[in-house]
Structure formats: structure tokens, C-alpha cells
């Protein structure tokens, strides 16, 4: 089987999970596409999963109430082994990329990290991935009975529901106790469309000037055109914006249809997170700013003057 560990939040599968389903369906290779749903009280998620996968395996228990890398790795490895999975697909999220290597070591299997394409030919799995701060695209390959892959969000078009619902099975898992204690949590919620799911993103950099300006210009424009809001690391480090909005090497990787950068210089670490956007728009007062080199459309000007005019014009 091709085993996909489902990611879900708020009782729903993430878009990244549906992208993995599509990747598995189109990769070639043998065996049913199987979603593994882990958590507590996940019957709803399992039902949703059955609309997309031929088989759904459900691990529903108190031990799975909260994510922990060692627990998730044990669950995924056990099911992969029992089901003789040829492919184990895990989300290319922060959490996915932290437990996937543990699964690979447990199964003594090769690990292809952060794949943007995937093809299976017999026991050989080939994938592409971005390296050198996303400036290079490498093709990597591994041959083994089981190969572990993490899939970069936004790289595949999400799967559509299948005509017939898949079968659901409960699974018994032998799980280790979590050794890491979570002593506090700060969740960064936004009422806007999630960054990795947005078609249009408006991002503000230090050039926006202040937290107040960020609210007026960046959020103002985003709300006017129904876009998600992003930020550069400089702005996050300055405490203007939450980390959840950071785009770049150490933030999120996004690939929207349009990425509108306001007062962003275009450092390589930032470009590595948004450089694959379909259209890039830059507004910056410095005509030499590196962001213009990757921009399709740009305005050389002051965000304080241009953005109010844009918000006004967008009303029409």
C-alpha cells in the first residue's frame, strides 16, 4: 500500500493531506492509497478521509490526543510495517519533517525529504526537491522495499473526492510514552485564510514602517482583496507580527497565484519561501531592491502613498 499519514486540524483534513493523496494517486506504483488518521475523537476526520482514499486506518486513542514526534513515528512505522507499505508519505510541515526521519531509521528505509514531485517505478522512487535556499532543483532517487517521503505543501493540486467511499479499519497501536512535556503553548490564530492555502498573499516588510502601518496598509490591502497576510523575518523579530505569518527559509513556504510584497527587500532567505509564486508584485521605494529582480510587476514608490491609492482603487 501507499500509506499517507493524514494531517488534520480543527476536525478537518488539511489541504496538504489532499495534495499528498493526489501525489500518491499519480505517482505510479502498486497498492491502494491508504490514509492513516491519528488522534483522539477523529471519527469525523476518518469519514472525510474515506471520501478520498481507498482505505482509511484509524488510530483513535487518548495516547494520540496531542502530537509528539516519538509517538507519531512509532505509529507510522508500525502501520507501514504491518501493511508492507512501499511508500510512506508524511506532510512536509514542521512536525512532519521532524518525525519522518525517525520513521526512516525505525524501518531502515531511505528518506526523500520535502518532495515537490514524485514518481514510483517498481521499488525505485524518484522525487524532486529544492536545495540551496530553493535556488537549485535536485532530482533524488532511492530504491528499497519501503521509502519514506515528506511532501512539500503546495506542490500538488489537491485530490477531489472519489465516487465511492473507502473502507475504514480501526488499528491497535503500540505506542511509547511521550517523554517531552509541553509546559505551555502559544497558538497564533488568524481569522484570515491560512498562508499556505491562500491564492493571493500580501506581505509586509520593514519598509512598511511600523506595526500600525502594517495594520493599515498590509492588512488593509489584504482584507480589501481577500488575501492572506505574510511578514518578513525582520518584522517578526521586531515583534510587529506573529511568527505564523513569517515567509521564508525559517518560516513558511508559499506558492500563491499572486504574492504582493510591500516594503520587502527580497533577501535570499525570504525569496526561498516565496520565489515559486506564480506572479510576484513588489512595491519598494528603492529601485535597486533585489525583490524587483524576481518581480513580474512592481512600483517604485513609497508604500505610505501607493498602498492607500491601491486600496482606494480596489474598491472600484
Amino acid at each position, binding site marked *: 500500500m501507499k500509506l499517507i499519514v493524514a494531517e488534520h486540524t480543527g476536525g478537518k483534513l488539511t489541504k496538504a493531506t489532499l495534495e499528498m493523496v493526489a501525489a500518491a494517486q499519480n505517482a505510479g506504483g502498486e497498492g491502494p492509497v491508504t490514509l492513516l488518521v491519528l488522534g483522539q475523537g477523529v471519527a469525523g476526520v476518518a469519514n472525510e478521509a474515506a471520501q478520498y482514499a481507498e482505505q482509511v486506518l484509524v488510530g483513535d486513542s487518548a495516547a494520540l490526543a496531542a502530537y509528539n514526534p516519538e509517538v507519531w513515528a512509532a505509529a507510522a512505522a508500525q502501520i507501514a510495517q504491518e501493511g508492507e507499505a512501499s511508500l510512506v508519505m508524511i506532510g512536509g510541515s514542521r512536525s512532519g519533517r521532524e518525525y519522518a526521519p*525517525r520513521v*526512516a531509521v525505525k524501518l531502515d528505509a531511505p528518506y526523500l525529504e*520535502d518532495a515537490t514531485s514524485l514518481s514510483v517505478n517498481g521499488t525505485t522512487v524518484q522525487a524532486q526537491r529544492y536545495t540551496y*535556499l530553493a535556488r537549485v532543483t535536485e532530482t533524488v532517487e532511492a530504491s528499497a522495499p519501503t521509502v519514506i517521503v515528506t511532501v512539500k505543501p503546495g506542490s500538488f493540486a489537491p485530490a477531489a473526492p472519489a465516487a465511492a467511499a473507502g473502507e475504514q479499519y480501526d488499528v491497535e497501536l503500540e505506542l511509547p510514552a511521550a517523554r517531552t512535556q509541553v509546559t505551555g503553548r502559544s497558538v497564533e490564530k488568524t481569522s484570515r485564510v491560512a498562508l499556505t492555502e491562500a491564492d493571493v498573499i500580501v506581505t509586509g516588510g520593514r519598509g512598511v514602517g511600523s506595526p500600525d502601518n502594517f495594520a493599515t496598509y498590509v492588512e488593509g490591502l489584504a482584507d480589501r482583496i481577500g488575501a492572506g497576510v505574510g511578514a518578513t523575518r525582520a518584522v517578526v523579530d521586531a515583534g510587529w507580527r*506573529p*511568527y505564523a505569518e513569517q515567509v521564508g527559509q525559517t518560516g513558511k513556504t508559499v506558492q500563491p497565484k499572486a504574492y504582493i510584497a510591500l516594503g520587502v527587500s527580497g533577501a535570499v532567505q525570504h525569496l526561498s519561501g516565496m520565489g515559486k509564486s506564480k*506572479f510576484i508584485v513588489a512595491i519598494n521605494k528603492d529601485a535597486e531592491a533585489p525583490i524587483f529582480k524576481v518581480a513580474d*510587476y512592481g512600483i517604485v514608490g513609497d508604500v505610505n502613498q*501607493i498602498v492607500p491609492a491601491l486600496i482606494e482603487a480596489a474598491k472600484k
Partner: protein
Amino acid sequence: MNILTLVRQVPDAEARVKVSGSAVDLEGATLVIDGMDEYGVEEALRLREGGANIETITALAIGPKRNEDALRTALAMGVDRAIHVETDEKLDAVALSRVVAQIAQAENITLILVGGQEADWDSQALGAATAERLGWPQLTWTNELKIEGESLSGRHDVDDGNESFSAPLPAVVTTQQGLNEPRYPTLPNIMKAKRKELRKDTLDTYGAANTVRVVNAEIQTRARMNRVIDGKDPQAAAEQLLDLLRNEAKVLA
């Protein structure tokens, strides 16, 4: 306790990357210690300076000759000794973790610090793979770290925000920007570092076999239109941009 901190020598982030044939070509590139690894070196030193009972801080590099420079940087920053497992073979993280885990055991290590993401291969895998081999817990994307007796505490980033944690030692921690500000090696420390131990080792005894082949590398750039509008008349510029986004790119309604 003993700390192992992993370092690598990589192309500077601002350096132009080039591809020759089907592989990345580092010829002529400016090489530096991986910024992510520098946070690990700095953190090890700070933990000691903060009063944790740390006997030896060892920097480890596995890779080609150039990594010696990263080890020299770590020694000059203040680590006690260095180990270089020299090989020209590019090993994947699962294979590398075999080497790191064996060295950690041989050196009686309690805490391993690993860069959160490699500046060249963009991989985040080695820390977790090593933790699994050793049967240790791991904390990734750490931006605050304390040692209290036999346990670690701190804060790290997770999918939707951040968490405070505590975890038993031994453990693997991956580092990132924000954890600290790495120090610059001073001239006296650079001189002193020349006398510190840099042990050379080979891959032979570790049984680390690569399983991931790089079959091609290319620089794919999307051609950009670079249509730049002068913003002297903000209103006209704004209207022109909106028109392009709506009617040419068709990305806005």
C-alpha cells in the same frame, strides 16, 4: 556532561550557486560555517558560561576537507576539541545519523546540537534521525534552552505557534535563528584554537551506506516580466497595477 555540536562548511547564502553538468558546482564559491550550526556552537558555550556543568564541548563535522574550516571556526569561538570524519561521499541524513550516533556514544555525549536546516541541502533530518538511533527525545526549532540538572527546558516553534517544553537528557536539540547571537572569534582565540585538538577520522568503521542518490541538479528560474511602474503619481501607478493584476495576470477579481 559533554556536548556534541555539529558543523558544516557551506556556500555563503548570498553566493551565486552554479550547476555544472548535473551537479551543483562549488568551485570559487565563498564558503562559511552554516549559520544554523553557529547557533549550536554558541548555545553550547552559553550553556557552559551560564553555569551548567559541562566538561567537554566537541564540534563534529562529517564531510569533505572544506569542513575543517567550519571546525576551526567552532574551535576559535570556544569549543574544546573537534572531530572531522573526512569523506567526499555525500551521505544522506539517515546514513549520517549512524556516524553521529556512534560518535555520541563513544564520546559519552549527553546533548547534541544540530542546525535546524542545512543552508545547502535544505535538509532538516539529521537531528531527528540521530535521536531515533540513540533512542533519545528531540526538540526541533528551538529558540530558548536551559539545562536544569538532568533535564532540558525551553521553547521551540511548532506548526501553529510555539511551545514551552521540558525533556529528559540525553537529548538532541536543533537550533535556529533567534536562539542567540553567535560571537565572533577574537584574534587571541583564533591563535589559541590552533593548539586545540582536531582529530581526523575516516568513514570506514561506521557502516554508513548512502541510500539517496542525487541524479540531477538544475537551476530552474521562472522568467519574470520585471514590469516596473514609476510611483511618482501614486494614483495612476496603483490603477495601472490593478489593471495588470485583473486583466493581464487575471489573479484578482
